């Protein structure tokens, strides 16, 4: 693929009668190696690129994408986008961006690609060894991996917009299998980094082992409504599952109860929710969004008060406001959606121990499973298989498994009694979600 193909596509679109057209191109290269018993067990090298076209034809936005980036592929792309435009009935205007705003482009420095495949494999082998040495109950290690990826994207349209960006990221993860009598337990820990200097494989291995070991001897607990400390990593998962309610598209379609709630209290006063593409602790932000609009930091909830939905150009135009720079297009094949960048709850003052003391008798939730089924992003209801630790008299006393935690996300935001100081970001994807541990009232636990 060369740059000329993007120009060629826009030319072909104009000739085919498109009033406006936009090309979006992404390319990614990735590497991943898993080791077992000191040798490479699984090894992947990947390269993928693709190009999409969206354009106004008869006032309607047609869309198509392809991985066949050649003359025939492009002709097919233009024809398909035109056919799709003819099907659209929705009359909302979908403006393209002219690129007249200014972006804060950080200078890009790749601190990921310098290591050779062998150096990365050696790190994975060392990580496995540390995990096995960390505790005698470690039976073996499965899924001990190191990965790296680099990405490039370019957006160009007939209004004069032409922007490009590059990124790179590394991942390390390990999941030890731990023997507990006749049963097996699995622990895990993952780390994302933008510089190999930030990777300490011994620390990743030891955290994974202590994660698994901490649940030895776990059992269920009595059902009931008790104070719940949601640990930072799990609270970040909740935020990710329900992030859609903050989208202006969801609100416009009647799928979010936040519609029209700007300026009113929707959470406890200790809750401030930020979307910051430039957050230094997370890796998902970029200088411009999926429509080329400059990205910026904004408070979505400030001291419990709802400030703004997240907008792309189409829904901003419909609501008569400016785009918040939240058009999302993780790959060339994605249609434009709305998503946060680095989305997190601002940390408070309380240590985790203080949250336990304030909870008195309750439970700390450290994992939720099956969020794609047990959580409904439209109603906000959730009922999720969980595990964690029993809290008695303000202290953690034993691990807990085979329980569910149930509630409603809108009510959860209102029920936050205290916010911890331990901000943590989950693994980055198209978005990053982060949170400190929080103490919440009003959730139900099902157990024995």
């Amino acid at each position: 693929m060369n740059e000329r193909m993007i120009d060629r596509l826009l030319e072909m679109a104009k000739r085919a009668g498109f009033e406006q057209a936009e090309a979006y191109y992404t390319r990614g290269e990735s590497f991943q190696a898993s080791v077992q018993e000191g040798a490479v067990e699984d090894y992947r090298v990947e390269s993928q690129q693709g190009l999409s076209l969206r354009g106004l034809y008869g006032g309607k936005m047609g869309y198509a994408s392809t991985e066949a980036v050649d003359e025939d592929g492009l002709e097919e792309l233009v024809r398909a986008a035109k056919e799709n435009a003819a099907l659209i009935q929705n009359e909302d205007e979908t403006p393209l961006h002219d690129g007249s705003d200014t972006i804060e482009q950080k200078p890009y420095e790749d601190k990921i690609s310098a290591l050779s495949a062998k150096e990365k494999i050696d790190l994975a082998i060392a990580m496995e060894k540390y995990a096995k040495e960390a505790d005698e109950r470690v039976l073996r290690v499965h899924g001990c991996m190191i990965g790296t990826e680099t990405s490039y994207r370019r957006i160009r349209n007939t209004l004069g917009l032409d922007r490009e960006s590059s990124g790179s990221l590394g991942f390390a993860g390990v999941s030890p299998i731990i023997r507990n009598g006749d049963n097996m337990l699995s622990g895990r820990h993952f780390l994302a980094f933008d510089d190999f200097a930030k990777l300490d494989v011994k620390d990743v291995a030891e955290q994974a082992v202590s994660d698994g070991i901490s649940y030895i001897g776990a059992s269920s607990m009595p059902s009931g409504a008790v104070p719940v400390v949601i640990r930072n990593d799990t609270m970040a998962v909740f935020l990710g599952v329900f992030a859609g309610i903050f989208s202006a598209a969801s609100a416009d379609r009647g799928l979010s109860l936040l519609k029209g709630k700007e300026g009113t209290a929707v959470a406890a006063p200790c809750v401030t929710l930020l979307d910051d593409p430039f957050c230094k602790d997370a890796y998902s932000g970029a200088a411009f969004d999926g429509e080329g609009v400059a990205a910026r930091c904004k408070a979505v909830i400030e001291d419990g008060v709802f400030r703004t939905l997240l907008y792309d150009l189409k829904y901003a135009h419909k609501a008569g406001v400016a785009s918040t720079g939240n058009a999302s297009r993780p790959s060339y094949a994605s249609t434009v959606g709305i998503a946060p960048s680095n989305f997190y709850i601002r940390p408070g003052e309380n240590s985790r121990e203080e949250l336990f003391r304030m909870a008195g008798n309750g439970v700390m939730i450290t994992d939720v499973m099956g969020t794609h089924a047990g959580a409904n992003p439209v109603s906000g209801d959730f009922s999720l298989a969980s595990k964690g630790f029993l809290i008695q008299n303000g202290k953690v006393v034993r691990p807990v498994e085979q329980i569910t935690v149930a509630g409603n996300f809108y009510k959860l935001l209102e029920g936050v009694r205290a916010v911890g100081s331990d901000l943590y970001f989950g693994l980055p994807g198209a978005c990053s979600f982060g949170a400190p541990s929080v103490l919440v009232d009003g959730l139900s636990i099902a157990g024995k």
Partner: protein
Amino acid sequence: MLNNTLAAEVLGKALSTGGDFAEIFAEDTTSQGIVVLSSQVENASTGRQRGVGIRIYKGLNSVYAYTNDLGREGLLRCAADAAAAIGEKGESRDIRLTRSIAPNIHPVRLLPGDVDGKRKAAALLQMDKAARDYSPEVVQVSSSFSGKWQRVQIINSEGLNVQDERVYVRVRVQAIAASGAENQTGSRSPGALQGYEFVEGLDLDALGRGAAQSAVTMLHAENCPAGQMPVVIDDGFGGVIFHEACGHSLEATSVAKGNSVFCGKLGKPIAAPCVSAVDDGTMPGEWGSLNIDDEGNPTQRKQLIKDGVLTSYMIDRLNGRRMGMPSTGSGRRQDYSYAPTSRMNNTFICEGSDDEEEMIRTMGDGLYACRMGGGSVNPVTGEFNFGVDEAYLVRDGRIDRPVRGASLIGKGHEILWNIDRVGRRMTMAQGMCGSMSGSVPTNVGQPRIRVSQITVGGR
């Protein structure tokens, strides 16, 4: 698709550093999606994926590389990258390929791409209208069509060179019922390994009405109580309990490395004697079926459990090597960007002999789970969970009132022993199953069953 000369050259390059098996998976897929929202076409998109994945084994080690640079140089570079990871030197091999086309047992009459978009949009608008007509409490409806035409070619160093085509269609309707302070949803989403004729055979009004009925029922439901209780799970998508509680743990992906609770249990009882279960990739036109798997092997019907005794795992080529057992035609992948591993096709609990009404009448107090959501499992510990979209409390053997927000959790190897009734009529439903090799279409199924005791998550 690749010609024999180029394919043999690429395989030769792949094996040039000591690998003992190499495979090329080439794919060219066209997909189309149409979304109707607020009773008008909101979105229409088309996508084409075209790429090649190359896999090499050396003993039990495997390397996977993929690219969508399909020129001769791009393919040879991809093969060389993969080969460099497997070793340093090896002998050149003479590879002879025999071309074949997989016999097609899933005939297609109407390719989805050949059907006018307006006809598809009309079908979606019909479901939209039926849902809205059901109740004024239905405030929003979204419906969608997705069609996919996947052409694959699998070539390996044992001489296989086989081609197959898979045509999928699916429609989905989701209704949202609202009271002002609350939203609840209901949905229906049938699909098949068939052409557009499948959509033309659907009762679209019933689908729209059904989605609306679920949403409105749940809007007026109380919260489900929490605790342990007997549960009757309906046929169709209820089969997700077997898929999560047992199916994933019978995949060689988990078994081969000793990471499943069912390792070493072949020939031993693992479930109540009333439980028999099958995974079948050969059922004509079914959502989870295939002519051949993504490693080129014909799919099979496998009896997983017979009268409570474990009789088969689901095995792919690489894990078969690890286990010393042949592939069961279970190697699947989402697309060329994933290496294949063992996955389910159409997996179901077989028909039993119990009366569907009796099992509710004699259950005392408990839960009737009539529509299930999806779920997940940790195969190492067997801990599973799944959501219940529509449920009713049972009081003294009678269905009492709707409840919402229920989920069911447990450990697979324990719950299989607690099944005490299996009904007479098995049906299946469609899902997308996510695992290491991506998201693949699978059917789940069962007759109505009863579990004597299970933890119900509620409020």
